[in-house]
Structure formats: structure tokens, C-alpha cells
């Protein structure tokens, strides 16, 4: 575990020293937030739209932006770079558990995602969004988003280890991306058309988004929050198992 932590600190340093790779994760989600709210806010006035629970449309849209920020997977590209540059072999030739090499990066991703999510939520607060579930809800909001980021990067990392190619890892990211939009992105699930509703119901991201949304719009609704965490934990377990397996068989 200590090796994973040492490697995690190094991955964080790498992130800090590449702000140009980090800044888009902050600005692109903000851009979408502003644009989506600007386009749809008039359709959903706060006073007469039941699913907004008295808040503005921005509060409803914030989870989409949080998930978008958590689904860039830049860290996986650093891993490809490390494989191509040979440093990955240097790490593999040292007596640390193989799992520490992948875990280190995931730990760093968790820390990074907590920071980015916190900044985004605080910006939201500054623009009048409130967290209806209070301080506990705030913590859960940040935790759930950050865990999603770790799961997402973890899957990208598997692609990186398998393909060892930046191009392939990038396009894998594009394959995952639609999952973010096959969700109740603009309106709650029960207002979607039937095919969309089916797609959203099958899509695990939906439950993460609904959990985040309920934390912002309602008091602690465990019935909605729990499925979000369950999805992240289940996918996280699969992701971890695959990561460890792939790096142990790396040749």
C-alpha cells in the first residue's frame, strides 16, 4: 500500500505539472453548464417546474457537468505515455506489487477528482445553486462524483494497458462518452420518450446522475442515493479486478 501511495503522489505531481491537460476538465463542463442552462432555462421556470424543487434549471444541470468533468480520463493518456517512454518498464522491474502501479494512478485520480468537483460545486454555490441535502449531502456529492471519475479512468487504464496506444485509448474514451448522454440529461426519466427511457434505465450512469441530482434538489433521499453508490461500487470492483489482472499479465 505504501508503494501505491508513493506512486500516487508522483502521479499527482504529474497532473499538477500539466495544467494544460487539467484545465479543460474544468472549463468544458462549465461551458456546457452555461450553454445548457441558457438554452433550456426558459422552458423550465423554477416556480412552475415541479422536478426542480424550487431551484433554477442550473441546479438540475450541475450533475451532468460534474459527471462530464469526471469522465475525461486524461490520466490514462499519461499511462500510455509512460509505457511508450519506457518508464513503465522501470516501474515493473522494481519490487513493488504490480497492483500498486495501477492503484497509485487511481489514488491520484481520486484526489484530483475531489479537488475539481469541489471547485465546480463551489462555483455552483456562488451562482445561487444550493445543496438541499446540507453539508452531509455536499460531501456525498463530491465523493460520488470523484468515485465515478476513478471508475471511468480505471476502465480507460485497462484499454491503455491492453493497446499501449494513445490513439486507441482516446477513441475508447469516445466510446464511453455516449453513456453520459443516454441519461435523463435534460429532464427526469419519467418525462423521456419511451425508447430513451429504456436506454436510460439500462444505463448505469443514470443512477449516478439521479443520486447526484437528488443530493442537490432534495433532502437526503437514501432510496435514490444508494443506487448511485451501488453502481459506482459495483463497477469499481469490476474495474479494479480487471486492472490487477491486466497488469499482472502484462508482457
Amino acid at each position: 500500500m505504501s508503494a501505491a501511495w508513493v506512486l500516487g503522489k508522483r502521479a499527482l505531481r504529474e497532473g499538477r505539472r500539466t495544467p494544460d491537460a487539467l484545465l479543460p476538465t474544468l472549463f468544458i463542463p462549465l461551458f456546457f453548464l452555461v450553454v445548457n442552462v441558457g438554452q433550456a432555462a426558459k422552458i423550465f421556470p423554477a416556480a412552475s417546474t415541479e422536478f426542480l424543487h424550487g431551484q433554477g434549471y442550473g441546479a438540475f444541470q450541475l450533475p451532468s457537468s460534474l459527471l462530464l468533468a469526471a469522465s475525461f480520463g486524461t490520466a490514462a493518456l499519461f499511462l500510455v505515455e509512460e509505457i511508450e517512454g519506457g518508464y513503465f518498464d522501470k516501474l515493473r522491474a522494481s519490487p513493488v506489487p504490480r497492483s500498486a502501479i495501477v492503484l497509485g494512478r487511481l489514488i491520484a485520480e481520486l484526489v484530483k477528482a475531489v479537488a475539481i468537483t469541489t471547485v465546480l460545486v463551489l462555483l455552483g454555490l456562488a451562482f445561487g445553486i444550493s445543496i438541499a441535502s446540507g453539508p452531509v449531502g455536499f460531501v456525498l456529492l463530491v465523493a460520488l462524483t470523484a468515485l465515478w471519475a476513478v471508475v471511468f479512468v480505471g476502465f480507460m487504464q485497462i484499454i491503455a494497458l491492453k493497446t499501449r496506444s494513445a490513439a486507441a485509448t482516446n477513441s475508447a474514451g469516445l466510446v464511453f462518452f455516449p453513456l453520459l448522454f443516454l441519461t435523463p440529461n435534460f429532464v427526469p426519466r419519467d418525462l423521456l420518450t419511451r425508447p430513451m427511457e429504456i436506454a436510460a434505465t439500462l444505463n448505469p450512469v443514470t443512477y449516478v446522475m439521479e443520486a447526484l441530482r437528488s443530493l442537490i434538489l432534495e433532502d437526503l433521499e437514501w432510496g435514490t442515493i444508494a443506487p448511485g453508490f451501488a453502481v459506482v461500487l459495483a463497477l469499481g470492483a469490476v474495474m479494479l479486478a480487471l486492472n490487477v489482472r491486466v497488469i499482472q499479465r502484462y508482457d
Partner: protein
Amino acid sequence: MSSQPGRRLDSRTTDEGDDVAGVVELDRHAAVEAQGLVKHYPGVEAVRGVDLRVQAGEVFGFLGPNGAGKSTTVRMLTTLLSITEGSARVAGHDVARDPDAVRRAIGVALQEAGLDPRQTGRELLELQARLFGMSAQTAAGRARELLALVELEDAADRRIKGYSGGMKRRLDLASALVHEPEVLFLDEPTTGLDPASRLTVWDEVRRVNDRGTTVFLTTQYLEEADQLCDRLAIIAGGRIVREGTPARLKAELRERRGLAAEPTLDDVFLDATGRTRDRVAGDVQEVSA
């Protein structure tokens, strides 16, 4: 040519004066031992049955033309690549069965210097030391020593991205030494170095060897092999074609060809890899045999 266990046994007996109880006795002194090592990549038989024995304390040179299988062999011996067939022991541990024990005992500098461009030289060495279990404080001290050793103190706190090729190679060498390994693997450690840096690396190889580290190095420079190596093997097409001390390989060629003058290691290399050099009116031509 296959290896000659009989001769080596004899020379060891006379060198060290202890009686040879047999294979077990020999094994204890072998820092690297490979039997029938084979590596197949999809569509390529890169290594086709390599037998090697490097005694503890030796500087062992591994020579061969491009694509002969040197790096592939090194990567198998350093646990980085799975072994298709055969077996290998490094520092007394089976490479396939106990890779972690091997990793604790070896230092590795591969052909492509594996460095992280976003760290500074100091950070890289400190991290490497931490990975070998040193405390943060010990690691910092060790990094300082090594930076001095490879003359990178001035660049220590700059990002590696801005290092020159030679600086990177020296840093890579330093990072292979953090834990004073029992066996040091260097894949072409001096390729691309200026003459002064090359001498620094040679000095460093001799110094770590004096302190008891076995060195396994590949090189394209026959002069380097002649200067540094106690013994060497030449690999061509994935098979070992010569093995012995530089002096014995030269003497063997001289005898076999009935040459008047002492051949150079270049001649041995060309002969071993199936090429000859004809001197015609001062021109040097390489001709495929």
C-alpha cells in the same frame, strides 16, 4: 559454438582454488544462469535456445548485430518479458517463479532510457529509492550521492524533459544503482554518449563491479567489450555463437585461421556473425559469407 562447461569448470578450479563438488557448487556462484531460453513473438523467433552462465562478480558482455535478440534476452532475465521456453535464474532466484526476489536483487537500465519527463532527476531517484523500501530521508540521501556520482548535481532539480540524451542515460544508470544491486543489467549503456560521458559510465561500471556487483551489459562497441568485460558472449539470430574471455576468443580465431597477427575483437565479431572483412588496397569491405 555451444558453451563448454568442462573448460569453465577447470578454469574456476584453478582461479579460486576450491574443489569443484559439481553443479550445486557452481550454481551458488552463478549470478545469471539461463537454460534453453526461447522467446517467440507473434511471427518472430527472437531468441532460440540461449544458454548462459555469468559468474558472480564478473562483468559480462553480450554482443550481437541489430535484431540478434540481446534486448529480448535482457528483458526476459529482468522479469519484464515472459519466457516462452527454458528457464533462467538471476541472483539465485528463478525468474519465472520468483520474479519479486529477482527484482529486489537487480538494477536495470534498458536500451531506451526509461525516465519520467515530468519529474526532476532528484525526484526520480528518490522515488526509485522509495520503491526499494527506503525511508524518505534515506532516499533523499541516496539520491544526493548518486547525482554526484553521475555528475548531474547541477541539473538535479530541473525536469528530465529538458535533459540531453547523455544526461538521461547517466540518470538512468544512477536509478539502476539506488539499492546497490547484486546484478546490474545495462542494455547498451553508452550508445549515443560523448567520449567523456562514456568514460564516466565505464568508470562507474568498474566501480560498482569492484564493490561486488555482477554486471551484464550489451554493447555495440567492441572496444568497450574489450576494455570492460571479463567474459563475453556473441549472439546472432537468437543463438549464442561464441562465448569466452576476449583474449581466448581472439586466440581461438588466430589459431583456427592461422593468422600471423593477433586479430581484434572486431574480427572475432565479424567471424562469429558470419561476415568477413577483406582488406583490399586499404579499403575495408564487409562481405556476407
